[in-house]
């Protein structure tokens, strides 16, 4: 028996926790009695606890989810796909928050609102994943995006951070406008915003004689809006500047969490709602362009964060291969790709944050890291090899499955471009390893010990990356279930 309250209790809890933490922060940070304490770490730990409790509440609702349910006037849907995507999102958010605590102390960052906004954006992303209507989807996207614009500019004393926030606001608002315009065109042409109705109207519309320029333009604009938000080429221009200018924990969060929720949305809207030759061609092109640009542009980078930004653009290209296939195997490979990408990125940014304390900003500063901290250098090397797709690491497994899905549906050129760009990408990933082990730095940097949160997160993600190939069965089964539940 479907219990609506239990089904939405995780979202209700996290919204309430967000507001309680906001009130707690405002009351105590302006309290003369407590000498105006900085509350970023305090609110951070409470925020992390809130995310973990939300995760438990979600997991406790599992028995309700064997059958898909629509609720709230059919605006939202709960099924296996929603359930596992939300769990994955919450785990990523918890991992990102746990990286931040040392950053607050080192940078004297006392804006507790940072954590509140992360929780609010997480709530928006939870709604995004379960949205089953264009209106619900757009509102959830805006809830998520508005929080991101603010946290990108959260380091108020830094011009780079302010510039990043402003750029993100202008470009993000523009892309949201295009997305909304596409939604309105679809509504104007079909009279429907619900994904079930759109699926009935739009599936095969290119061959049934129901062609309409309104529908075509609507789908195109929605695709453009989404492609902007996942930083796919040719809508990627904002990503390197904003990733570099934002505070590093924000960059980590922007690289991981929104990609999960937006890819989940893309799958709902496009795989279930409408899928045709036009859309496939758009994503084909964007996938190939992202892979090529991600590989070539990253070679010229001298800063670690910009290199990771271009690397993430390249990885979005690989993940879009799964979408371009349009098959169950393609969707499964996309979900496996996102999961492994998220864990690799968490690992990479935890290392960047640990090195940030010693003022490592440029790739050249990594010189002799193998001498000052050999275990960290080995961890970074494992992450880079995994990004490059070298077996037997997890990154190889995700690329392998994506390329096989492409071959299975006849997209041979896509798979070929993927392999070639992976080889090109090896250059700049292994260049980092060469810098750490064989080069001397411009200035010798003293090592500062990292905190326990980051070291535990690094240990867990590194073990996953290294040992995934020994037992990939749970991830394969769960992603297969998620892909099937999109259709059934």
């Amino acid at each position: 028996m479907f219990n609506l309250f239990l089904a939405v209790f995780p979202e209700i809890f996290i919204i309430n926790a967000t507001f309680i933490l906001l009130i707690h922060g405002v009351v105590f940070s302006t309290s003369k009695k407590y000498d105006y304490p900085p509350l970023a770490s305090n609110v951070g730990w409470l925020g992390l606890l809130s995310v973990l409790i939300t995760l438990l509440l979600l997991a406790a609702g599992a028995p309700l989810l064997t059958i898909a349910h629509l609720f709230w006037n059919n605006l939202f849907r709960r099924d296996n796909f929603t359930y596992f995507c939300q769990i994955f999102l919450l785990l990523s958010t918890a991992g990102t928050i746990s990286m931040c605590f040392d950053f607050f102390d080192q940078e004297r960052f006392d804006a507790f609102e940072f954590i509140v906004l992360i929780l609010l954006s997480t709530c928006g992303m939870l709604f995004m994943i379960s949205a089953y209507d264009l209106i619900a989807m757009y509102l959830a996207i805006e809830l998520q995006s508005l929080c991101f614009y603010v946290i990108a500019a959260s380091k108020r004393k830094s011009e780079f951070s302010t510039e990043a926030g402003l750029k993100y606001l202008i470009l993000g608002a523009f892309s949201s406008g295009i997305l909304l315009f596409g939604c309105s065109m679809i509504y104007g042409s079909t009279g429907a915003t619900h994904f079930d109705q759109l699926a009935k109207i739009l599936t095969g519309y290119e061959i049934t004689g129901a062609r309409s320029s309104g529908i075509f333009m609507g789908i195109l604009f929605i695709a453009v809006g989404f492609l902007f938000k996942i930083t796919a080429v040719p809508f990627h221009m904002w990503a390197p500047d904003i990733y570099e200018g934002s505070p590093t924990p924000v960059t980590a969060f922007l690289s991981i969490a929104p990609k999960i929720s937006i890819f989940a949305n893309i799958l709902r809207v496009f795989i279930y709602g409408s899928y045709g030759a036009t859309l496939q061609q758009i994503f084909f092109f964007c996938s190939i362009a992202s892979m090529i640009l991600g590989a070539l542009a990253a070679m010229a980078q001298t800063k670690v964060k910009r290199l990771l930004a271009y690397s993430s653009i390249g990885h979005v290209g690989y993940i879009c291969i799964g979408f371009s296939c349009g098959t169950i195997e393609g969707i499964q490979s996309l979900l496996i790709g996102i999961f492994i990408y998220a864990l690799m990125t968490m690992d990479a940014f935890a290392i960047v944050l640990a090195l940030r304390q010693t003022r490592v900003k440029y790739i050249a500063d990594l010189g002799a890291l193998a001498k000052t901290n050999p275990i960290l250098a080995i961890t970074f090397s494992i992450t880079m090899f995994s990004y490059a797709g070298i077996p037997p690491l997890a990154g190889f497994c995700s690329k392998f499955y994506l390329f096989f899905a492409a071959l299975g549906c006849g997209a041979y050129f896509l798979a070929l471009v993927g392999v070639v760009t992976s080889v090109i990408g090896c250059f700049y990933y292994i260049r980092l390893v060469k810098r750490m082990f064989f080069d001397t730095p411009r200035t010798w940097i003293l090592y500062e010990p990292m905190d326990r949160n980051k070291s535990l997160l690094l240990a867990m993600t590194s073990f996953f990356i290294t040992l995934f190939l020994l037992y990939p069965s749970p991830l394969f089964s769960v992603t297969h279930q998620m892909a099937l539940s999109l259709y059934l």
Partner: protein
Amino acid sequence: MPLSATMVGALLGLGTQMYSNALRKLPYMRHPWEHVVGMGLGAVFANQLVKWDVKLKEDLEVMLNKARAANERRYFGMFCLC
């Protein structure tokens, strides 16, 4: 099977804690009680993962059978595998 999952999980937990200490440039066995906690959590995690994997495979089989039955109902007659 449960024994090997427990052993593998305990080793993973121990390895994670030792790795964490090594990253912080501490002696590998600093605060040995944390290693015991890690082994316990690792063993629980591995056993739950194996159980979850078995359940996932069963649920997947049910979903695939449902899809196969729906396809067979839609098309006249049974699928010919010859």
